[in-house]
């Protein structure tokens, strides 16, 4: 049978299931009151700004209908920008404008949209179309991240991001997410994005999967998916580890992009990160998390935590 795997096999490899994640990690280590900090990207931005964590610049925020009517002068000065809902998830409701062509706005895919389209999107966002439970929402207009040259052929449309799982302040597992045509450029594994497992110690790719199947080349660009190495790996892990310090979330996923000029930028955080990262890494989270739970360190510093992660704390625990 190769369409079912026995629970014993999974347990031996420390694969974590949804129930275990919810009950044992999300439920136990993530205080309820910290959720709004990560679920609302505006609050995340303010928090990050105060703590000096780099994020894409906030250009405008829109929370009322009359602001949408008067949006034109604000947008006309911008050549490129990104619109997203403050409470969005899974890449929903995001519009990336990469350039202007006379009056029209040009999306990263090359498609041209007009001002009305943008107003329509903003109305949808503030009326809560993309937020959980349909509550009214704010729209964020922020600066566009310029894809680092090494990623330019690896992703369609969107900027690839790196998801790092941080447990009790220790980065434990990482994955590079690449948009495909199938995922409509979104870096969302459910929708068909590629997940490239990244060795947490070195920042080098260990293998790629799309929709649970391993692959060696990008299906759209043909670019090989082996031999990927993330630049500034230590900086990136440090950034991820700091997210724990400012939010107080014990178990969280940080989505980080690498800007061509500014280096690693925090894109957003997630208090309920998905489990697909285990498949991309070909490794379960279970043992790494257990190893960290068993650590007896009193308030390790940021540097210590990153050191431990890069020295293979989790790797050792797996032996």
């Amino acid at each position, binding site marked *: 049978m190769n369409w079912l795997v026995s629970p014993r096999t999974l347990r031996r*490899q420390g694969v974590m299931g949804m129930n275990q994640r919810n009950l044992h990690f999300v439920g136990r280590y993530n205080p309820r009151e910290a959720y709004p900090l990560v679920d609302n990207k505006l609050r995340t931005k303010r928090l990050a700004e105060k703590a000096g964590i780099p994020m894409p610049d906030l250009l405008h925020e829109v929370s009322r209908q009359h602001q949408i009517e008067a949006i034109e002068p604000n947008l006309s000065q911008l050549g490129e920008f990104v619109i997203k809902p403050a409470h969005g998830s*899974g890449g929903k409701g995001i519009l990336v404008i990469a350039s202007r062509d006379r009056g029209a706005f040009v999306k990263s895919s090359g498609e041209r949209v007009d001002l009305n389209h943008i107003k329509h999107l903003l109305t949808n966002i503030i009326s809560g179309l993309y937020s959980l439970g349909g509550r009214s929402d704010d729209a964020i207009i922020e600066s566009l991240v310029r894809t680092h040259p090494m990623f330019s052929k690896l992703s369609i449309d969107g900027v690839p991001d790196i998801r790092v799982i941080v447990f009790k302040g220790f980065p434990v597992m990482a994955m590079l997410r690449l948009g495909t045509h199938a995922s409509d450029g979104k870096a969302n594994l459910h929708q068909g994005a590629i997940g490239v497992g990244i060795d947490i110690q070195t920042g080098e790719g260990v293998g790629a999967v799309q929709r649970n199947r391993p692959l060696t080349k990008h299906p759209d660009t043909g670019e090989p998916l082996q031999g990927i190495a993330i630049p500034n790996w230590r900086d990136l892990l440090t950034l991820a580890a700091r997210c724990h310090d400012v939010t107080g979330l014990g178990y969280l996923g940080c989505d980080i992009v690498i800007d061509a000029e500014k280096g690693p930028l925090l894109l957003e955080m997630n208090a309920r990160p998905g489990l697909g990262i285990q498949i991309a890494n070909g490794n379960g989270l279970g043992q790494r998390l257990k190893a960290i739970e068993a650590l007896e360190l009193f308030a390790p510093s940021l540097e210590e935590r990153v050191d431990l992660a890069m020295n293979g704390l989790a790797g050792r625990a797996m032996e």
Partner: protein
Amino acid sequence: MQRWPFILAVALLFLTGLGIATYRYLDTGMPLLPGQERAVWQIEARIAFTANGGAAEALLTLPPDQNGFEFLSETGASPGFGFAINRAGPQRRAHWSKRDVEGSQTLFYKLDLVQDTGRRVTEEKPRRRSADSFDGAYDTAAKEVLNALTPKSANARSLAEQLIQEINTEPPDQNMSLLLQRYSPVRLIGALLSRADVTARTVKALRLRDGRRRQRLRDYLQVWHDDGWLLFDPRRGLIEDTAHILVWQTGNPAVLEVIGGTRSRVTFSMVSQDQPALGLARERYNPFDLSLQNLPIAEQGMFKLIMTLPVGALVVVFMRLLVGVRTSGTFMPVLIALAFLQTELLAGLIGLVLVVGAGLLLRFYLSALNLLLVARIATIVVLVIALVTVLAVVSYRLGLISGLAITFFPMVILAWTVERMSILWEEEGPLEALIQGAGSLLVAVLAYLVMSLAPVRHLAFNFPELHLCVLAAILLLGRYTGYRLLELHRFTPFLKRSP
């Protein structure tokens, strides 16, 4: 909570539920499984009218003693009204009166009876009454209809069957359609039978169906055949199994007469119970008896439905946490299952898929209108109601009575389902919408199947304390940290790494 106190609490809940149920079982002899024969029915007639001011009287015709039923007790509870039962003649009547009343009034008549298929009442063949006589052209038409049918029939019974078949043929023949312009089908059959010297009468009867509310009496036909009455449905012919039909009114006086009031009407509610439940019901004056059988009958029917909800919730918890099925809306499937219980599965399923499908199409047009969320949902509610109306009318026109069942679905839930599915469709693609839609339907159907099991319904209503056990099971599932069944499939990439 720590592990052991939690397990202890769950075990305590479980044992308490089981313990109370066992105690009640031993104490009252309430059966653990639903019995088929000798079910007890409690029937409630609710009379409503508007009193003009001054004296008012209400007369309700009561069912006669008849085959297959044994009457246990009857009461006519109504504050301020004098109540008596007139037993003059074969047709008993309940009589309420009050000297000075004004405004809307509600009167209740309750009847407990036991279904006893073996019981026979000896009845005398009624003296022939002068039948409805046909006049002029109608008489000629009646004669021709009978002349054509009499040779084909051997006795009263077959003549009645022939007549019912004839009257329901589409299109009816010339004579028949002439007669039908003048007489209602039931009256016409009765009159034709009388003209052919067959003893027949039209009756009003109540169909006994568990948990029904706001029912009305229906017209039937009785034909005297071999020392007893045979019951005919004026549309379908002879009814062989009369176990669930209670004849309420035969002969002349109307079912309800109100003097000194207007806008009078009578509706019926009923529930069935197993015999020992009646023992409890008889002791209903015991203030410590808190069983559900104490409630008014209409509310009991309601609770029979409500009490199956926890079971449905358990099914949802099981499917989501142990199997890993994705549904749109956490408990939406239970509400749909609840609606299925009232619509029958197939009719409900078809209706639901039709309404949600058509709603989705309309919703795609709506997204072009650029509305705010609340207004959009409200629009969908209106559209869903329009769809339901169209569906009900069209299916009724096509002769599919079951199409009317769609009205049992909660409209707002349907509207939210449409909205959720369409957002899913736009954002995650049709595949995800299909997966979640199918998941919801699967869970709803499973919940329906469990909730409609006769033993489950019986236990849930008669032993409500067993819900503590359901609760214990839900709590236990809530602490399950193992893999979900579908995760065993999702994580198959780990298969080849296993040593």
